[in-house]
């Protein structure tokens, strides 16, 4: 049974991050995803210290607030003339450091494992189950990720055209009266949510891999946005299965293997994609010359 729950958790992480990752990659905000995933750290720790539990609603809200605060700070610094990449670097490392500091100060009292936050513990998701009046409803992580996925799918499908237009042409979007900033923060809020829901299983660092690598892989495989989102989720799910299988065989970190698998799939797409692949491009060039 544990295999099932671990794989289901992985699939849910892949689905949440795959959908959002496609928009992050196209908006050239891959590093914003990285920044958010690290910046939620102090929120998680503070909520944990306040509630003493790691699956409270408070944790979700606090982490989201921290993620959005990071996005806001990054934009503020950029507008005031700090270079874009520098302002991302400053904000997320500083916020992450505050989180590390808090964990190291209070970790002994509250059993919040630094490694678990950084690298996740997907192997143990099935231990932490949700029991309502004696009935075991399955791992809490699955419920949390499932809820997050429903929210993401609902919001993105309701406002697909808005998200598409603010990604492709924000100037026209604004001219048409689409509240560009609102949708930007809505997207960033969902990225924060996905990060918090995933951090327990894959950790704050590896979730970035799930946000960016499958989306970047999908980008190499298609010329349609809708298909890119589906492929992004598909690549994430494939990475989950391949990675988990490999982890069982070589007895290594599951989350590590999943993201490695995603990396390998990316390299394969980079080399062999029929439309954008390195090999296909070389072959086309050779045909032109011959």
């Amino acid at each position, binding site marked *: 049974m544990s295999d099932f729950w671990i794989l289901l958790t992985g699939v849910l992480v892949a689905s949440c991050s795959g959908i959002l990752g496609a928009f992050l990659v196209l908006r050239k905000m891959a590093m914003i995803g990285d920044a958010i995933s690290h910046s939620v750290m102090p929120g998680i720790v503070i909520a944990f210290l306040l509630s003493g539990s790691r699956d409270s609603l408070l944790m979700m809200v606090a982490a989201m607030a921290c993620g959005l605060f990071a996005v806001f700070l990054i934009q503020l610094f950029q507008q005031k*003339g700090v270079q874009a990449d520098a302002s991302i670097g400053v904000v997320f490392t500083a916020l992450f450091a505050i989180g590390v500091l808090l964990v190291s100060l209070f970790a002994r009292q509250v059993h919040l494992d630094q490694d678990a936050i950084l690298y996740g513990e997907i192997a143990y998701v099935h231990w932490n189950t949700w029991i309502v009046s004696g009935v075991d409803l399955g791992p809490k992580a699955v419920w949390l990720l499932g809820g997050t996925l429903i929210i993401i799918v609902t919001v993105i499908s*309701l406002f697909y055209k808005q998200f598409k237009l603010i990604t*492709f*042409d924000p*100037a026209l979007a*604004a*001219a*048409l*009266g689409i509240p560009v900033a609102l949708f930007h923060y809505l997207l960033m809020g969902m990225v924060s949510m996905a990060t918090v829901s995933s951090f327990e299983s894959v950790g704050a660092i590896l979730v970035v891999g799930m946000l960016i690598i499958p989306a970047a892989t999908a980008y190499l495989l298609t010329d*349609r946005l809708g298909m890119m989102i589906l492929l992004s989720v598909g690549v994430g799910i494939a990475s989950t299965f391949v990675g988990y299988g490999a982890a069982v065989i070589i007895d290594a970190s599951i989350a590590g293997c999943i993201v490695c698998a995603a990396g390998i799939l990316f390299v394969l797409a980079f080399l062999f994609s029929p439309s954008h692949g390195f090999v296909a491009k070389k072959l086309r060039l050779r045909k032109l010359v011959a």
Partner: protein
Amino acid sequence: MSRTDSKSTTFVMERESIAPPLAVNGLTAAYQKKPVLRGVSFTVTEGELVGVIGPNGAGKSTMMKAALGLIPRLSGEVLVYGKPYKQQRKLVGYVPQRESVDWDFPTNALDVVMMGRYGHLGLFGRPGAKERAIALECLAKVGMADFASRQISQLSGGQQQRVFLARALAQDASLYFMDEPFAGVDAATEKAIITLLQELKQEGKTVIVVHHDLATVEEYFDSVLLLNVEVMGYGKTKDVFTQDLLQRTYGGRLAFLDRSGLAQPDITKG
């Protein structure tokens, strides 16, 4: 002017009889505290092609963006058919500079043109068969019907520009803002664009175009706005497009421009 009744039928009659397509009053805008537009005022007559001319950094694009509410204005008023732009969005079409978007975006020409319909679809509406038909029709008008399913990065610069124009047509507006539609396009596209502008004009639409090529100004535009942070001249092309006013607008950099204004096609580039 009584504007208490906002019913669309009344309103259409009203805008045709009274309010000009665009009235800009004392518009001032700035990027990071540095004013790029100061006290700009002009009123556009319905059914005209208006060229906006001026050196680089004169605030031509900024004027459009401020009018469309894309950047905040420090002061001044912009009225579209007598009302603030926010109430008149559906009457206004916009063609941003071609370089302002990433043409590697995973989509095709038809899909980009359909984006022009988004403003008519409401909050949750989805583009369907009707939008598709309109988009195809607009692509045909710019001579791009055969490229509907082409990935946009596979199009030439001129073709991309025509897709942008088709998208603006799909907006089905009465007043159009076009930011350098002629920049870096081939001769075929230039001809397609100017034909289109003439057609729009014949339909009674008003088009404001940021333009760089001084050699074609007299041929293309009914009126000209000479801009260099402030308005240096505005009026009918034959009255405003003069050696004297151009000299003032370009700050003497046009010393070698001959009387006809046709000598230096690309004077402002670079």
